């Protein structure tokens, strides 16, 4: 909307100072005298253009980050309340939200970003490796990537509304700039790093558990490389000193029809370790071997103590 001179009107609203009782609410600067009708045509309210329009992008500032107007206070306070990301001062928050593409000399957030990436990786890996103690290393790496990789961090940053709050090269123009989501992910990592430095390990771990480890994986078996499940299963049973697995046809229907169903169970001795269905006997056996491997590798432990408990 184009900025128009607001009407002279009866005193309506008190001005709030930065950091007042409602930091996320900011009013326009109001007139403190009630005007007469003939004064409506005159324009003397000296309001800054910033307050009448949507906040204009601030020019790249130097290393000092002092908050200048209530729009910013409100935005940061709302962000803090929305995400639960509480740091000791708004300056730290603003520094963390400034991407290195915003202007020259923005090193602090790049360091926070590196630290945040490592911290996130640590706490998520620690949690998942104890939750799935039998998972092979490559599958674990893939699962951890599903939680802390670029896609996941981008999605969490969009959920927090980070792209609307961050300062990056796209803040200097209102036009669409490429790479907003990737920059949002970088800024979220930098926020985690700033939280770690400012608030400590306990607060950061709680934050990560709340927002990253609450996510779920649809299909864990997709993280397992299962090109030849039957030989893999045989080798696994050998390693565990179990009886060599044998597959048995449990049930079948429609063998000569266009949609047959075979149900195959894989037995290690008398114990059924896996079961699978398919439209052919070999497909069903494949499915049963996959099922047996998944049951073993993705065994979940519910309650466990984290190694980082002692250092928090």
């Amino acid at each position, binding site marked *: *909307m184009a900025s128009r001179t*607001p*009407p002279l009107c009866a005193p309506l609203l008190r001005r709030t100072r930065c950091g007042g009782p409602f930091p996320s609410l900011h009013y326009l600067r109001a007139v403190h005298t009630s005007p007469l009708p003939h004064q409506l045509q005159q324009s003397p309210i000296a309001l800054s253009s910033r307050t009448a329009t949507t906040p204009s992008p601030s020019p790249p500032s130097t290393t000092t980050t002092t908050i200048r107007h209530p*729009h910013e206070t409100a935005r940061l*306070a709302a962000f803090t309340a929305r995400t639960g990301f509480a740091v000791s001062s708004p300056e730290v928050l603003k520094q963390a939200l400034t991407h290195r593409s915003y202007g020259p000399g923005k090193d602090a957030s790049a360091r926070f970003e590196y630290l945040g990436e490592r911290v996130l990786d640590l706490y998520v890996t620690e949690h998942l490796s104890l939750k799935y103690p039998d998972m092979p290393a490559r599958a674990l790496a893939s699962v951890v990537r599903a939680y802390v990789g670029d896609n996941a961090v981008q999605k969490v940053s969009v959920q927090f509304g980070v792209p609307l709050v961050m300062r990056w090269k796209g803040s200097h123009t209102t036009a669409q700039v490429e790479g907003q989501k990737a920059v949002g992910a970088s800024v979220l990592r930098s926020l985690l790093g700033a939280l770690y430095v400012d608030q400590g390990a306990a607060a950061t771990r709680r934050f990560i558990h709340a927002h990253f480890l609450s*996510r*779920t994986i649809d299909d864990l078996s997709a993280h397992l490389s299962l090109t030849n499940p039957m030989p893999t299963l045989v080798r696994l049973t050998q390693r565990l000193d179990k009886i060599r697995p044998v597959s048995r046809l449990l049930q079948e229907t429609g063998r000569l029809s266009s949609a047959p169903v075979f149900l195959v169970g894989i037995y290690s001795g008398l114990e059924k370790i896996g079961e699978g269905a398919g439209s052919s006997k070999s497909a069903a056996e494949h499915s049963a071997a996959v099922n047996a491997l998944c049951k073993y590798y993705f065994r979940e432990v519910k309650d466990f103590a984290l190694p980082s408990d002692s250092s928090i």
Partner: protein
Amino acid sequence: MSTPRELIRKLQNAPGLAKRILPVKDLTSRGHNGAGLTFVPHITKLVLRYDHPRLGAGGSSTGMVAFLTSQLPAVARARPYVEICVQPRNAVPPHLLATYASGKKTLVPCAGLSAKEVAAKVAFLCDSMDGEERNVKSGRPVLTAGHQLAERVDPVWDPFTAEHTFRP
């Protein structure tokens, strides 16, 4: 000789080839906002625009102005996660503009509404995902998977549930 994995990757990335190969599966984790005891509201900013009532103009903003003076501080206190911005706009009917985390902006006109109605609209926008009203025609908030196929009078045949399907 390429391994099968390399061959599939080459076929997927080959230019000009009809893409009948399935794309790589997206293995990213899925978020469930609110399921893990932490909920992140979707709304980020709410702008309230009005034209103050005076002689000859602004009559449709009376309800909005009453809301701003009486109820807005309480709303701001109760909803600290929304950035609330109040802006007078000369010769423009009053409205609400909500910005959501996805970047979507929703404009809700408030001309001629009472303070209570404006409060209801504000509450709806703050609690909503994108400010759109959705009418769930079936009357059930959650639709079960496969409801269209499984609950038909004559359901689609599948070999796994063929024996359990009642056929009179």
